């Protein structure tokens, strides 16, 4: 089943074009890695998929499970099972992780026509998910990301993902700023959530994360376009050779 189909996507921020014709198909059960140097547009792609208002799509189409994604509000996308793990998760003082996550889950359930979950059932559900990120229940009473270290914020994103069970998860530089233990926890959490009926897009600058989350496809972005696609071995080649040779290849082509 096709989870996501991006056709000739162009997007800009202000007057500055950032995405210049991206086409990509992601099927259910797959993990795709989007790699590329800084400024290549990979984080913009993640933000556009989630519906960040700062970016304007000027051309192209995005179909998510057959629906026109660009026609949906960010919260409708989330309610339809799309999830973005933020590169810089936002702090929300005074609002506990438990309240926030249950509110999110209930909005998603309501959109699906399901009953809201009560606080007791919710805590049972969360207890199992906390194990994935190797956390105890005390994290649920802390305010969302407030005073969290960089690594804790990323773990919290994975916890949210585990509870909300998205159909399509987009991880935006989730590996940046993580030490090796946090990286392992985050990656094993993501792996545990892989299923035949969901898909994951991993946006990363470095190959390191892909040692833990093994992708089915790797795409390299440069100047807002996919300049090369391949299997997981492409990531290793990028690690060895850097991004320079690709730009040359594009220029000479």
């Amino acid at each position, binding site marked *: 089943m096709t989870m996501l189909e991006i056709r000739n996507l162009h997007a800009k921020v202000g007057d500055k074009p950032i995405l210049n014709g991206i086409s990509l198909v992601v099927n259910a059960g797959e993990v795709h890695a989007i790699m590329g140097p800084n400024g290549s547009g990979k984080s913009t792609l993640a933000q556009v998929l989630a519906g*960040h208002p700062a970016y304007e799509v000027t051309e192209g189409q995005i179909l998510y499970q057959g629906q026109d994604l660009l026609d949906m*509000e960010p*919260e409708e996308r989330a309610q339809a099972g799309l999830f973005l793990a933020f590169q810089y*998760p936002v702090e*929300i003082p005074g609002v506990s992780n438990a309240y926030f996550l249950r509110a*999110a889950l209930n909005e998603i359930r309501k959109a699906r026509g399901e009953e809201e979950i009560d606080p007791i059932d919710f805590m049972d559900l969360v207890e199992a998910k906390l194990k994935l990120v190797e956390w105890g229940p005390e994290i649920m009473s802390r305010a969302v990301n407030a005073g969290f270290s960089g690594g804790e914020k990323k773990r919290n994103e994975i916890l*949210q993902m585990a509870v909300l069970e998205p159909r399509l998860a987009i991880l935006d530089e989730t590996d940046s700023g993580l030490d090796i233990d946090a990286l392992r926890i985050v990656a094993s959490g993501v792996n545990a959530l892989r299923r035949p009926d969901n898909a994951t897009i991993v946006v990363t600058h470095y190959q390191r994360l892909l040692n833990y989350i093994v992708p089915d496809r790797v795409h390299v972005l440069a100047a807002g376009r996919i300049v090369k696609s391949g299997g997981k071995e492409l990531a290793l080649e990028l690690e060895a050779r850097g991004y320079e040779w690709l730009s040359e290849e594009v220029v000479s082509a």
Partner: protein
Amino acid sequence: MTATYLRDYETLTGNGGAKAPWLAGLRQTALERFQAVGFPGARDEDWRFINLAPLTARSFPLATGGGLLPSAAALAPYLISIPGSRTLVFVNGRFAPSLSSSPEARPGVTVLNLGSALASHADLLDRHLGRYASAEASGFTALNTAFMREGLLVHVARGAEAGGPIHALFVSDGSQEGAASYPRNLIVLEAGATASVIESYVGLGDGSYFTNAVTEGLIGEGARLEHIKIQRESEQAYHVGTTHLRHARDSRGVSHSVSFGAALCRNNLDVVLDGPGVEAQMLGLYMGRGRQEVDNHTSLLHAHPNCSTREIYKGILDGRSHGVFNGKIYVTPIAQKTDAKQTNRALLLSEHATIDTKPQLEIFADDVKCTHGATVGNLDQQAGFYLKSRGIGGALARRILTYAFAAEVLEEIPHETLRASLEAVVMSRLGHSEEVPG
């Protein structure tokens, strides 16, 4: 307009209200001051942002005692259950011993109704009363001083600890429409003493009345005071409350101010750092809706070196409400190494809500670190997108973010039950009474 006040003053003093000459003198001087200056008006720089006319054009006769006391059930939502705490309840300005909890005796700690202390602790009062809150400060303080009769007295002897918080609950029950009350509180902490004092001003029902409150305090050398003022008056009422705190060297103070009620509320917080090495914090939260006017004026006098202060005030204004924040920081030439940080933020939830905000830094020392920041605006857009990306949009997202804005200030209130009850008020004001996100 002042005729009512003069007549009430004659009645009050004629009834033998003050037998001690020092007190009679204090009151008389204050009354003369009020006669001379009257209420402030739009021409006074410190009052120009707020329209006092609805208050000053009307006469508020002195609330009389007697009558039925409110039931315990009516007071329950405003009581604070904190272990070791004690509560003094005042109804329409008069002490209500039957509603108060009898203070557990602690060595060196005096907690009394000021009215009883006028006779029993005359020396103490003579030394302190009117010394920090000067009747010169404004017509309101002068009027309060002329009419002062009851309120909270806290005295903590050298090195003693007051224990659990001392709560003074001032209730206006709405039984005397248009009446005025003049709570007067005095807090004296001798060197090394500690105390936590909570003042609540509460309206039962939606009566229109006038509370003119004054609190003054001395925080002795190395002493620590935590002071919390909660204003939950009726939304038809008028509240002018002035707090003067004077800090001796190396003392610590935290002052919280939370305002939800009153048609017109003016909070003056005046802190004098009267010795080196003082650390003081001023934290405020105010909410306005309908046509409420909420004015917070803070003044911080750095008169000695090596003091540090931190001030955060936040406002949430909805409907056609109007907020004022004026934060004055005055650093004298000798107050070197002053470290003062002031932040004030206001959130406007409606296009008709307005705020006047004025940081006022006057710095006459050269080796200081003083910063101020003011923001007025709407909800944080990046946080809004974060919530949307989790499926939370619309009214629920706005409520959560508005709550978070307020919670950042309330989180610093150390008593969990008090904090929770204030958070619940915020949530109910945001139209959501089920659950607190904390």
